[in-house]
């Protein structure tokens, strides 16, 4: 469905951020993209959704195919129209609009009034809490509610693929569980493909089918979630487990650090 082939992204024409990234999101699959801060995860998503242009970035090499069509450097609204929606990180709500108005902006490009109403009901079914808050100014909702709101807004655009950027950012662990449970429920019901960018590797690998690890603008490792979960390096650096598989205690930390075994 989504096929990113060896893309290179530069900001303002000089700052090279992605140095040849390739990844695939097959139909009806959840794929996760893991990595530390500044690895280029969000840039990858923005390259797909066309939002790079607002930050003076461009795909300078490589191609992004969506259903066989090249879409790199396209207009964001055309890309949304094709069925690709990005959930921007950090709870990108319109603060002064009410919850329901926020949801309706998701359906901005749609003209099928009846279907929009049906989808609104569907979103409220996924997020019952939002229904009770529909007429509240969204800026005053809690962090978890705002995150639900942006995911709900993305659903309102009838996406074929959702690019979700750090849904767990700044949320309490219980809320993270709930958000991921809902993402999984949305996937189970709608069978939309999902590209999940995360720092919370445990939660992401739990629901994803396939994973990519990104470092410094490159993909350094990829594989099915099960394989990744068993990889020693992943366990050490992303899952916070030591070699024996038990939670690490700071008491036992040695004086040397484990080195990563890949070339970044």
């Amino acid at each position, binding site marked *: 469905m989504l096929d990113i082939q060896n893309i290179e992204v530069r900001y303002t024409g000089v700052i090279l951020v992605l140095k040849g990234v390739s990844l695939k999101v097959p139909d009806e699959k959840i794929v996760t993209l893991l990595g530390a801060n500044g690895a280029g995860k969000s840039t990858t998503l923005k390259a797909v959704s066309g939002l790079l242009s*607002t930050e003076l970035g461009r795909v300078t090499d490589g191609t992004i195919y969506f259903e066989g069509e090249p879409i790199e450097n396209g207009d964001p609204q055309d890309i949304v129209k094709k069925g690709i929606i990005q959930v921007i990180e950090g709870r990108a*709500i*319109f*603060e*002064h609009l009410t919850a329901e*108005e926020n949801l309706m902006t998701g359906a901005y490009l749609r003209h099928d009034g009846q279907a929009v109403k049906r989808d609104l009901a569907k979103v409220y079914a996924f997020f019952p809490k939002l229904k009770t808050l529909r007429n509240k*100014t969204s800026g005053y909702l809690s962090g978890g509610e705002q995150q639900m709101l942006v995911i709900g807004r993305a659903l309102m655009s009838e996406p074929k693929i959702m690019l979700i950027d750090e849904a767990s950012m700044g949320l309490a662990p219980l809320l993270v569980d709930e958000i991921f449970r809902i993402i999984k429920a949305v996937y189970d019901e709608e069978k939309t493909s999902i590209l999940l960018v995360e720092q919370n590797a445990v939660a992401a690998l739990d629901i994803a089918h396939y994973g990519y690890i990104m470092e410094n603008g490159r993909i350094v490792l990829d594989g099915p979630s099960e394989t990744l979960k068993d990889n020693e390096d992943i366990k050490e650096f992303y899952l916070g487990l030591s070699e024996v598989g038990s939670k690490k205690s700071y008491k036992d930390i040695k004086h040397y650090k484990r080195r990563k075994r890949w070339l970044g």
Partner: protein
Amino acid sequence: MVFFLQLTVTGILTGSIYALIALGIVIIYKATRVFNFAQGEVLIISGLATTTFISFFGIAIGLISGLIVSFFLGLIIERLTLRPLIGQPILATIMMTLGLSWALRGVGSIGWQSTIRQFPEIVSHSQIMIGEVGISRIHLIAFLVSMTVFVLFAIFFKKTKLGLGMRATAENHQFAQSTGINVKGVFAMTWAISCFVACIAAILLGCIGGGISPTVSMIGLKAFPAVIVGGLESAPGAVIGGLAIGLLESWAGGLIHPSLMEVTPYFVLLLVLFIRPYGLFGLVRIERV
């Protein structure tokens, strides 16, 4: 007392025109974060164009074509001057609208010379007496027209899809783009609508003053305090700001000293900025604790 009432009525009626000009500025600011210093000049150009159309096609068609042309004037201004500045520092856009105001002034004096263009007497200038307070009919109609425009805009912003898109764009351009809103299209539409509103204000001013001349653009300066008092992002604020400035001007001029009329709005401007920097009705930044 009658004198005071008379001042009040006059203040409110002239204030409604300021409010209309302020609304034009607010519409643009809300969606694009650009403060349009050229609003007064847009008003003049669209007013002068309307007088020309009226002299060619008669009143009805003249007015309509004036409104349509100013709508397109807005699209052209946005495309030529502001579109290339998307993403540039705020100072650049400020300088651009300032430059635009002088350019439009130039266009006005080249195209129409600096003479007053007569406006036909569409409504009679006779007065209606309520008790002992006289209200000129044309002022009253101007007031009603501007209030209707405000109500229509309130409904437009609240109920239509384009209105929703504009409000979303006003909050955050990137977020709006991510939901598929055509942000550039919204920018163009806001300029078009704002110039349309400016043309309505120009027509009303022309009817009240009997004509329109390039010097009327000074009225744009009166709208700035109205905008700031009301709050840059608030359309209802523009109404109240405009009316407040009209009232204060009228009271200060009538009760204290006529020369105060011109400066009062700016005193108020300073005072409001001092107490509430975001204006009386501006959006307070939402911060959750």
